[in-house]
C-alpha cells in the first residue's frame, strides 16, 4: 500500500529532530570539564590559562581549597612549575556519601616562548585562583620598529 508523501517525510523529520537533540547534547557534554575531574586528569591539575600581554606572561590556575602556603611556584629560565598537595579535607566523624573532590599531589610545568626576568615574578592567590605574573626578560620585550621613508 502506497503511503502518502506526508507520512513518509514525517518519519524523516522525526529522525532529524532526534539527531538534532543528540547533537546538542553531545555539544554540551564534550567541551566542558563538567564534573571537574575527567578532562583535568588528562591535562593535569590544576587547569590553567596562559596569557601573553606583550610585556609579561600571566598564568591563571584554579586551586580550590589551597592557600599560598600549600602551593610552590618555582621559575627557571623559561619554565614555570606549580606544585603542591591537595590534602584530604574530610571532616572527622562523618560518613562520606559522595567524593568528587579528590586529594591529589600535583606538579605542572609551563614553558614560555621567551625567557622571563626571574627577579620580577609575582604570584598571588584569591578565591582559590592562583595568578602568576612573569615579566619578560629585557631582550624579549616587544620593540617598536621605526619605519623610515626612503
Amino acid at each position, binding site marked *: 500500500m502506497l503511503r502518502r*508523501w*506526508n507520512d513518509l*517525510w*514525517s518519519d*524523516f*523529520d522525526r529522525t*532529524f*529532530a532526534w539527531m*538534532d537533540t543528540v547533537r*546538542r547534547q553531545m555539544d554540551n557534554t564534550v567541551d*566542558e*570539564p*563538567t*564534573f*571537574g*575531574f575527567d*578532562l583535568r586528569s588528562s*591535562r593535569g591539575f590544576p*587547569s*590553567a*590559562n*596562559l*596569557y*601573553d*600581554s*606583550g610585556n609579561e*606572561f*600571566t598564568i*591563571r590556575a*584554579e*586551586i*580550590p*581549597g*589551597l*592557600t599560598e602556603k600549600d602551593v610552590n611556584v618555582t621559575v627557571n629560565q623559561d619554565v614555570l612549575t606549580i606544585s603542591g598537595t591537595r590534602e584530604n*579535607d*574530610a*571532616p572527622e*566523624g*562523618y*560518613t*562520606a*556519601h*559522595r*567524593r*568528587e*573532590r579528590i586529594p591529589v599531589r600535583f606538579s605542572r610545568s609551563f614553558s614560555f616562548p621567551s625567557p622571563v626576568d626571574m627577579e620580577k615574578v609575582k604570584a598571588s*592567590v584569591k*578565591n*582559590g*585562583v592562583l*595568578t602568576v605574573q612573569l615579566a619578560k626578560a629585557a631582550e624579549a620585550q616587544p620593540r617598536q620598529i621605526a619605519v623610515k621613508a626612503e
Partner: protein
Amino acid sequence: MTTETKLTKREETLPEETRTERRVAPSVDIYENQDEILLLADMPGVGKDELQVRLDKDVLHVEGKKSFDENDKGLLSCELVPCSYARSFSIPKTIDGDKISASLDRGVLTVHLPKRESVKPRQIAVTSA
C-alpha cells in the same frame, strides 16, 4: 515539495537555546554525621557577591559566577572559560531548612545542613524496674 516547508518550519518552532555562558556543575563532597549533612563544593574564582545558595521547597540550588579579571590579554592556552557554576540537590525532609548555613573560603563552598532535632538518634535510659 512538502519536504522543504516541513523541515524549515520545524526549525522555527524549536529554536536552539543559546546561553551566553556555559553552565558547569562544581565537584562536590557530601558527608553526613548524626547532627548534620555537610556539603563541600569546589568553586574557584567565585567571590561572595557572585555566589547564590538558596533553598526552594526541598531543593538546594548552588549557583556562582566565575569572574575573570581581564579578557583577551593575548591568550596563549585556554583551559578555563568564564562560566557559571550551577548544581541542585534534593534535600531530605529530615533537614531543618531554617538552620542551613554556608560559607566560602579559598574557593570552596561549605554548606551545613543540620538535621531536625526529632530525627537525631536518642539514647534511651534503661531503668531497673
